[in-house]
């Protein structure tokens, strides 16, 4: 009988065993196993033997892993208790450290939330990358004239001619209109008129109503959930009727979820387009009359070149005819939905936009704060190395490897930053609401639990832990155990230098941010107090917006004038800060020119009520019946633009103003925010006595008050108003307040920068406190000797101050030029700006020095007052 050769033990298992139990390459144990394997194989067969062999390997590997884990857990527990003991022993430093780190992390998270919010503008729409807004460029006398809006005919006509365009939407922003429901009356803001396709193109999920036909019929409206609640409470809003204006009804046919607020189109209600235009007459409006925000939904991977190829035919059909009479060449501008919020094209009638500058600014501030916090940690940890060094020495003697020590020290910083992160998260959850309110932001706490964000924050915390732990870890673990345990150890020179550099760096950043904040403040104050060319104080502007009462206006004006507290009354469309534009023909020095300038519509006494000044010619005057048809008042900038030597009598014509001419020149005044230069503007007359007259409908009544007994006058005005127009609420605003509101965004940014700069200062002061405590500790013996030799406490404090003083001066020297660079960048977006005031820089510098010395004085004075005997006793 031939004996079959027995196969060896399983290869893979053997390899695994070798891997886990290197046994110095001799493998006696594996040899033993193999021998037993063979004996089992002979007795019970190979299958059993192989099974046995595998089981042995499996069991040993499992218990090996279990053991390793168990021991590292024990070690971890050891590290943990070490850390906790350290924290207990040095509560003050760890508290500072922890505070700095958690504020740093909290700021970072808030900035991440802010940036996320800003960078995802309009991206929640499912079709976001296929939606384009079509804006208009009317090339006038060779110069581009850009409008964010387009003709109401454009969208539907494009869809007709280009079958590949899936949908088109027209949106008109109504500003505010009067809504009435039961006894509720509001000038409702943020209402738009839109085509039914708005619900198909954009992603506005309907909670109630039918997506296909809820905006099809005239006099229907779709509300957001919050607005529906405002008017109807808990009642079912569907089918309810809201009155708008004086007699029009709107039936609620749908309710949508409140859209996210990071969208450039913000609305609370959509009125169906047919309400405005039941007979589709707006389709006849010329391509040269832009008024509607027009969006199209293009097919996937659509090439705009294909669109432009067919455009000449479209142009010929719809635009060519009007090109002559308007004297403009029309061009379309496509803008991707997600690019709208940050476009810097400078369209007229643009919706409120974002500013990329602030994104960058906040991004850098976030990084700076993080760096500051990390630097603090490094500083604090290394500063206290003298107390740690003995521990490290002992550990090394007991056989800790360098790797273990690094691991332990890094682990410590990761642990501290982990707690800091938890703390920061909790803090934000509590503080986000007031923070939002104060800064006018709309960050949602819900966003904090976004898995992506949490992953990001976890990454951030690991990064902070590692970055701030890396220097102390390597620095401390590199200490030689003999040096560490010998008695006279003091940390080496290079450590001190690194620490000084770090603290100086912190001060560079915080002084820089403080400078920037100061200049932002100054610019905003400057804008608020600058002479605008008219007197914005004591002017009340009352909402009019009612065609029916126009005939009663002259009598009402007369009535108001009787009050001794009222100086003058005038009507107008818009107010400074909110003008319109128009295309007119001007008599230039070499023939007729077409220009589109800003237009302010005004009634009699407008100039006087505003407190502006006529420098040439005269104001509108009821004595001249032609003023209403033919009179124009222009500003000085327009005169300069046209290069008129003698502006009075120059011809300006458009439509009904066939024989218009300039009757007066008004001194330049700011009718827009100081972000913009004063541009050419003309003032023409409004319908302020008869609704059949040409001209715009007055939207407000401006009343200049003497400014005494303001509450009484306002009460009286309200009383008169209710008499005059009982259908409308008495809603008013003060002109100076509405002008101030133009700088809301700037002020908000300023406030945010202020908060962050404050945090920067705190963090770097904490850093300085750490440094000064360290240096004074290091110099206790020197100080003691000096005292013994007769130095006074004051002299010693001075010596301690000298070092810090030098650091701060260095920091100032570096940070001021850098911050000036930033300030200039920021100021660049204002047409009117303050200069750079060296006094302000000086104040910032002196402030920094004083605060720094004050912080350092705590430890310095403490050291200076110690009894030298205590410190020299052990020598």
């Amino acid at each position: 009988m031939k004996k079959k050769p027995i196969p060896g033990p399983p290869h893979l298992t053997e390899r695994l065993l070798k891997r886990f139990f290197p046994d110095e390459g001799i493998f006696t144990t594996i040899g033993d196993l193999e021998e037993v394997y063979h004996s089992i194989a002979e007795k019970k067969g190979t299958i059993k033997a192989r099974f046995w062999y595998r089981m042995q390997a499996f069991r040993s590997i499992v218990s090996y892993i279990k053991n390793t884990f168990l021991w590292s857990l024990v070690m971890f527990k050891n590290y943990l208790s070490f850390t906790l003991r350290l924290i207990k022993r040095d509560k003050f430093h760890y508290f500072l450290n922890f505070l700095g780190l958690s504020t740093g992390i909290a700021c970072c998270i808030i900035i991440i939330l802010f940036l996320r919010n800003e960078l995802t503008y309009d991206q929640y729409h499912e079709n976001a990358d296929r939606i384009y807004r079509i804006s208009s460029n009317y090339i006038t006398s060779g110069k581009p004239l850009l409008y964010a809006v387009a003709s109401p005919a454009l969208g539907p006509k494009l869809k007709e001619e280009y079958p590949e365009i899936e949908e088109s939407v027209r949106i008109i922003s109504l500003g505010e209109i009067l809504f009435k429901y039961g006894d509720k009356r509001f000038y409702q803001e943020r209402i738009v008129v839109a085509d039914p396709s708005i619900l198909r193109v954009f992603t506005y999920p309907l909670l109630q109503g039918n997506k296909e036909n809820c905006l099809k019929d005239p006099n229907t409206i779709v509300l957001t959930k919050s607005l529906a609640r405002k008017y109807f409470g808990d009642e079912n809003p569907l089918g309810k009727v809201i009155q708008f204006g004086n007699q029009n009804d709107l039936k609620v046919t749908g309710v949508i979820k409140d859209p996210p607020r990071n969208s450039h189109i913000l609305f609370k209600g959509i009125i169906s387009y047919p309400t405005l235009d039941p007979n589709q007459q707006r389709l006849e409006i010329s391509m040269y009359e832009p008024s509607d925000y027009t969006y199209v939904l293009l097919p996937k991977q659509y090439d705009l070149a294909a669109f432009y190829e067919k455009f000449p035919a479209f142009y010929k059909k719809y635009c060519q005819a009007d090109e002559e009479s308007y004297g403009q060449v029309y061009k379309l501008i496509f803008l991707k939905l997600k690019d709208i919020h940050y476009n810097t094209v400078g369209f007229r009638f643009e919706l409120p936009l974002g500013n990329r500058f602030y994104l960058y600014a906040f991004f850098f501030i976030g990084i700076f704060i993080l760096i500051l916090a990390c630097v603090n940690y490094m500083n604090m940890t290394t500063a206290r190395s003298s107390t740690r060094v003995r521990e490290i020495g002992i550990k090394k003697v007991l056989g800790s490897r360098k790797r273990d020590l690094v691991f332990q020290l890094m682990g410590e910083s990761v642990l501290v930053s982990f707690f800091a992160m938890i703390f920061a998260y909790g803090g934000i959850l509590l503080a986000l609401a007031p923070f939002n309110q104060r800064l006018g932001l709309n960050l949602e706490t819900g966003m904090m639990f976004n898995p992506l964000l949490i992953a990001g924050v976890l990454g951030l915390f690991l990064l902070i832990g590692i970055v701030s732990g890396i220097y102390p870890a390597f620095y401390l673990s590199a200490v030689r155990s003999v040096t560490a345990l010998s008695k006279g150890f003091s940390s080496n020179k290079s450590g001190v230098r690194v620490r000084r550099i770090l603290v100086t760096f912190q001060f560079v950043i915080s002084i820089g941010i403080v400078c920037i904040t100061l200049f932002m403040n100054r610019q905003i104050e400057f804008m608020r107090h600058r002479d605008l060319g008219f007197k914005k104080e004591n002017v009340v502007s009352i909402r009019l917006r009612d065609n029916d009462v126009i005939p009663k206006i002259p009598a009402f004006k007369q009535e108001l004038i009787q009050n001794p507290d009222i100086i003058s009354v005038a009507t107008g469309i818009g107010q400074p800060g909110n003008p319109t534009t128009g295309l007119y023909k001007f008599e230039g020095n070499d023939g007729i020119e077409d220009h589109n300038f800003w237009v302010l519509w005004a009634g009699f006494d407008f100039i006087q009520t505003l407190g502006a000044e006529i420098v040439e010619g005269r104001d509108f005057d009821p004595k001249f019946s032609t003023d209403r048809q033919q009179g124009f008042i222009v500003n000085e900038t327009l005169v300069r633009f046209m290069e008129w030597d003698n502006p009075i009598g120059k011809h300006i014509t458009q439509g009904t103003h066939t024989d218009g001419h300039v009757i007066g020149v008004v001194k330049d005044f700011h009718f827009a925010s100081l972000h913009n230069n004063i541009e050419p503007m003309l003032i023409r007359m409004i319908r302020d006595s008869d609704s059949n007259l040409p001209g715009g409908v007055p939207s407000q009544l401006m009343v200049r008050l003497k400014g005494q007994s303001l509450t009484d006058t306002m009460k009286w005005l309200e009383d008169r108003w209710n008499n005059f127009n009982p259908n409308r609420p008495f809603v008013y605003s003060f002109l100076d307040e509405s002008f101030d509101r133009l700088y809301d965004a700037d002020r908000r940014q300023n406030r945010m920068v202020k908060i962050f700069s404050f945090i920067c200062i705190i963090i770097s002061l904490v850093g300085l406190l750490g440094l000064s405590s360290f240096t004074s500790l290091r110099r206790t013996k020197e100080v003691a000797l000096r005292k013994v030799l007769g130095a006074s406490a004051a002299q010693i404090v001075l010596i301690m101050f000298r070092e810090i003083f030098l650091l701060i001066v260095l920091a100032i020297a570096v940070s001021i030029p850098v911050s000036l660079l930033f300030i200039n960048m920021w100021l660049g977006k204002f047409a009117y700006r303050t200069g750079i005031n060296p006094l302000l820089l000086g104040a910032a510098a002196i402030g920094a020095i004083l605060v720094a010395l004050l912080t350092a004085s705590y430890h310095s004075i403490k050291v200076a007052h110690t009894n030298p005997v205590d410190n020299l006793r052990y020598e």
Partner: protein
Amino acid sequence: MKLLSRPEELFLLAIWKLQDNAYAVTIRDQVNRITGKTWSFGATFVTLDRLVQKRYLTSYLSAPTQKRGGRSKRMYQLTREGVKALLDIKKLQESMWNDIPRLSLSEVKK
């Protein structure tokens, strides 16, 4: 005087008995045979390691053999301390068994 535990005693005796052929496999076989139980390799190695640590045993490597896939054996040998410990425990046990009344199951009352 430190006393050996029973497994230690068993192992030391097994190794003494095996003389020049004492390595993990043979030792385990021997112990298995005496006790009638199956000792796992883990238990074997743990006990052997402990005995080495207590200096009752030393180990050396034998020449590699074909049977074990060309690997060496780790051979075990008793040290002086090991032998002394065995003698001690033997003496102790003998003196303990020496002057007791007759031990039998029939004497147990309950």
